[in-house]
């Protein structure tokens, strides 16, 4: 599903990732871990095409992401659900609009969108919060909205960047269970996280990054 061949990403003299070789199969569940600044977010950004590798080749599904142009990028992204580290919610849109956007861009009818939105909201424990604006939610609630948006269109790949950073232990477990359930339905899941307790409780393959290098896999 995901293959990296000698991928590097540098900003001037700063290397965010250096010479990464990696293969994640379809349906796998992987943690991406490592200290702050190790390159976890950078790896995810490469996978959804927000940045292009400085060197190397990068395949996601059937797409050669290292060569993809702006015009076709959306075809890749429609198969990927993303939970961003900084949530990336639109402040002036309600929770329902924020989550529904991922279906709007596919041309799903409004009434279908409405039903799916309230379904995923109750999955993340925010039922009835459709019409609230993100700025009126707590940090953890915003994070769960981000999770809801990522899973609404049943993506074949789910990328989650620190999806439990603002959640208490119980809630973090619940979110992990959601990700696990999605994984069981066949979705490839990559979770960047610092949370050792989480990784202990849900043991999966770990990709450990340190100083821009993949240390163990």
């Amino acid at each position, binding site marked *: 599903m995901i293959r990296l061949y000698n991928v590097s990403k540098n900003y001037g003299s700063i290397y965010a990732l250096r010479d990464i070789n990696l293969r994640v199969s379809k349906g796998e569940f992987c943690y991406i871990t490592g200290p702050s600044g190790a390159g976890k977010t950078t790896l995810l950004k490469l996978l*959804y095409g*927000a*940045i292009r590798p400085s060197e190397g080749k990068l395949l996601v599904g059937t797409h050669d992401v290292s060569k993809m142009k*702006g*015009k076709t*990028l*959306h*075809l890749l*992204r*429609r198969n990927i659900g*993303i939970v*961003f580290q900084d949530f*990336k*919610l*639109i*402040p*002036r*849109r309600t929770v329902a609009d924020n989550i529904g*956007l*991922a279906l*709007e*861009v*596919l*041309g*799903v*009818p*409004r009434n279908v969108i409405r039903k799916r939105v309230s379904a995923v909201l109750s999955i993340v424990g925010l039922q009835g919060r459709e019409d609230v604006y993100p700025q009126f939610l707590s940090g953890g609630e915003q994070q769960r909205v981000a999770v809801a*948006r990522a899973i609404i269109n049943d993506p074949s790949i789910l990328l989650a960047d620190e999806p439990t950073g603002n959640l208490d232990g119980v809630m973090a477990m619940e979110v992990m269970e959601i990700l696990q359930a999605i994984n069981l339905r066949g979705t490839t899941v990559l979770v960047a996280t610092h949370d050792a307790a989480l990784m202990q409780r849900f043991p999966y393959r770990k990709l450990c990054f340190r100083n821009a290098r993949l240390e163990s896999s």
Partner: protein
Amino acid sequence: MNNSNLDLLQHIMRRALRSIWENLYLNAVAAGVIAASLLLLGVYVSTLLNLNSIVDTWNKDTHISAYFDTELSEQEKLSMRDQIFAMPQTEEVRYVSQADARNWLTKRVEGIEDTLEELGDDALPASLEITLHQNSSIASEIEKFAQELRDQGFNELDYGVEWVEKFNAFLQLLQMLGVLLGGLILIAATFLVTNTVHLVVYNRRHEMDIAKLVGASNLFIILPFLFEGVVQGLVGSLTAITGLWVIHQTLAIRLQEALLLEIAGELHFLNTQQLLLLSIVGISLGFLAAFIASTRFLRQAP
């Protein structure tokens, strides 16, 4: 177009309307800039058109006064008139008797009345007022015609074409200036509107970035802006036309009443075709600006 595309179009239209609503001020500014530039253009064009039509009436009025020798008999004068009427350039010939001439002068020069009375009927000569065909009413043609008249024995000719010619040249200058200014106004307007739309795009940049990240196609991003631009152009055009109409109804007509009625004839409003052209210019302006601003954004988006 399948169902999904129809739904997509619906989403896009809703986004456009929402964006117009949420950026009402900026959209109003864009429409206002379009309206202002069209208004300027419209005022200029309609001023030019009206001046042109005034000059046309003046040109029609251009006539040659050919004074008869006082020695000629009434009979001879009339036969000469017929002769001149037969010339190809001639549109109309009017015989002005001595009495007519006296009337004319009395009306124009205040205080000369009594003087003329003292002088008696013979003071002013009779004359022919010759109006030429439109296409002969230009300075060079008139000069040629005058030469022919001189050949026929008229020694005193009176034709004041100079001032009209001067004014015509001035009009042509205005016209050239107008093309230049009009071009500049349109470029400036496109620039201003592009930048205003760019502010709208800037305001929604965060939202657009996120839309792209969750799989929006480029069309999904820019179509709402294009629609917005067309609406701006439409509103701007209608505003400009209304403004032109109001200006025409108040200022122009008042001006006409106050000063120009005698020389101006009637002032005309732009005709439907010209108004349509103006609207098309406005809508294209809005569309172009939106296109430039939104594609400029796409090139920067992640």
